């Protein structure tokens, strides 16, 4: 399990401190604090954070917006963004109708508002509205699965997932860092993981093909690196063998 790394761009030290406290209490890690556009961009490219919280006005100039524009120029390196704004600037900010997706946080804010803004920023960035804030609690973005877990968000790299199994209506992700219940059906999960090295082997299981240690054809079993043995059903056996040939 990895903590989500946040870059703060804020020129007022006490505000930045408060934000850092809120974030760390909420289970996030603050990887850097910048107080200007230049430093913000420098840290952004150097640290590659998962999320950015930027004040719109830095020393009286709308540098937060400039930051968003500069970051948006390259979609490959862009990240979810939350704008921090004062009440006095809020109307001007709303009227600006920025094109790029973002979420915003109106000062003063409380931890619940911060958490909501983070979820919204991630959803908008991944173009998966409601992926975290409504019903579902998992979002796939950039080779990682973001799961809402105990009022916070955690990041599970796709490659760390060993297998996914059905758990009632939803499914359970079994990763190196532990198991997490995700409010998605196995079918939806399969859709999300299709692009990676994942394959359905049973109506209850999707496995990471890179985690296979052995396949027992006679027993219809797959042994994973983590020693776990999973059943292979007849329906999916042929597809598994084909995929395995290709990988070998």
């Amino acid at each position, binding site marked *: 399990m990895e903590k989500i790394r946040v870059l703060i761009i804020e020129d007022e030290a006490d505000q930045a401190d408060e934000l850092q406290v809120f974030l760390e209490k909420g289970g996030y890690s603050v990887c850097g604090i910048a107080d200007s556009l230049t430093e913000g961009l420098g840290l952004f490219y150097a640290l590659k954070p998962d999320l950015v919280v930027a004040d719109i006005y830095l020393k009286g100039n709308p540098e937060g917006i400039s930051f968003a524009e500069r970051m948006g120029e390259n979609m490959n390196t862009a990240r979810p963004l939350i704008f921090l704004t004062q009440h006095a600037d*809020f109307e001007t900010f709303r009227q600006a109708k920025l094109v790029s997706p973002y979420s915003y946080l109106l000062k003063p804010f*409380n931890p*619940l508002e911060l958490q*909501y803004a983070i979820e919204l920023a991630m959803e908008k960035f991944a173009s998966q509205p409601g992926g975290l804030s*409504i019903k579902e609690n998992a979002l796939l973005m950039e080779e990682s699965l973001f799961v809402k877990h105990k009022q916070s968000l955690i990041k599970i790299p796709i490659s760390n997932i060993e297998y996914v199994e059905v758990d009632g209506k939803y499914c359970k992700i079994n990763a190196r860092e532990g198991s997490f219940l995700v409010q998605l059906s196995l079918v939806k999960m399969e859709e999300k993981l299709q692009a990676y090295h994942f394959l359905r082997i049973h109506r209850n299981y999707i496995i990471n093909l890179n985690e296979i240690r052995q396949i027992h054809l006679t027993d219809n079993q797959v042994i994973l690196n983590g020693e776990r043995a999973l059943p292979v059903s007849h329906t999916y056996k042929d597809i598994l063998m084909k995929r395995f040939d290709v990988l070998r």
Partner: protein
Amino acid sequence: MLLFADDQEPPTSLHRKALSYLAELCEGESACNQVHELTALFQTGDYDKAHEMLMPEFDHCTGEKCFLLSVLKAKIFYEKSLIKQAINEYKVSLDLRDKLPPSFREDFAIEPVMASLLLEEEAFLTSIQYLRPWVERHLASENKDQFGGYYHNLGIAYLHLKKFDSSAFYFNRSIEIEMEMADTLGLAISYMDIANLYYEQYLDGQAIPYFQKGLEYALLAQEPEVLRNAYLNMAVVEENRGDLQRALSYRKDFEKVQNTLWNRDKVWEMAEKEKIYEIGLKEREITILEQKELVKNAELSRQRWQIKAYLIASVFLFILAGVVAVGYRIVSKSNKQITEQKRVLEQMDTAKNRLFSIVAHDLKAPVRSLQRSQQKMAAAASAQDKETLLALAAENGHLLNATQNLLNNLLQWSLDQTNQVHLMRESIEPGRLIEQVLYDYEPMFQEKGIDLETDFVSGPMVLVDIQSMKVVFRNLLDNALKFTPKGGRVHIATSTRGDVVRITIEDTGCGMEQGVVDRLFEISQAKIQTGTDGTTGTGLGMILCQAFVSRNGGTIEVESQVGKGTIITLNLPRIAET
């Protein structure tokens, strides 16, 4: 020496094909219309006009179009009996065709046409050079009737060149096809030509049966010109053979057919002349009628102008009357509007003035309290009375909180009134929104000893501007906090009813009289309420709540009973789930 040369008309399909290709090629209405016009000219046989139309097109043509135009030009030359020019133009066409895709070679069979024209010009060798390779490349299986003609032409060309073997070969192939097609006329001609072939070589024994066969088929075909030639051929043959009696009989038959031909031609001539005379008569009649009509038309147009003039004048008058009427209505309507607007503005102005006095009162009270408290604090400080100091500080905190809320509401209200609130609607679970506001209020409820209960349904969503809805909930929670006594209870719940999400905030506070409830959303001094801690409320918060809820597409309802409590219900439209 008798030779019956077959002047066969070249296949007419070439120019038709060219025209249909042009029609497919044309772009734009005017260009396509031009092609239609050209097609019409070719159909009516007005080749001079067609030529006139065609020539400028050559200046700006490329590839396929140039080729098609050239085919048409050659056809025009042919129709104007300019055979040499037609041949030259077809040569140009052939050169152009070679640069186009091979399919054009199949679609436009120019060689046979060339060959028949060359035959007419007696350029037999060249004719063969065009026709023979083409015939050999194509199979006779398609277009049998045409191939009969081609073989025949080759036969004739070879015959003229005195290449009798080749000539006989092609005539025989021509006969084969004509037999198959039961083409009696073609057979008559072919047999006579082949007879002539042998006759040329003095192979009379072979020639005569063919001449006889030619006559047989000519009789079957009943084409006078061919029959005439057949009889004449037989007459000459019999004469040369010395059978004068037969020769004479054939000669008589020949003259008979010749006469019918002449008669036919004469009848034609007479009919032509009669036609011309009658046309002259008709034309004269037409000119007379036309002149009469001109006179009539002049009269009619004069009358029509009169009618038009009347009509225009009346329409003009009607419009004028309409304009005056509409103008009058606009003026009176705008007058009405102005008075209405004035009334509304006056109302709003009084409301605002009232608001100012309320706010002034509201601001004056806490400031005065703070002033007093300030003096007390100074006294307590000098007396080192820490407890009193702390109590005063806590009291001041409440006062400042209340004042800040009032100022916030004033700011929101002024933004709303000047239309500066731009809503950004987002979908959210109402519980999720309320809980964000509630986070800041929980300690205050706890401090005052009020039970706070929530009961949120998960699932239903609303589409609202989150910031303005937060202002609404802050105000409602403020009121609940202010008007509920210690030990009271505040219950917040969300539920769905049809396509509406209901949010209720129920308190066990002091409640309001019905008269106050009824005027809750009006700006007036009369409804100032005193909270449990002695602070007063102006109701500005409730007015703001109503404005913002309705901007978010919802409604607000208030139920209250003095001494029992108040229930505020918000109804917000629910988003259909996807």
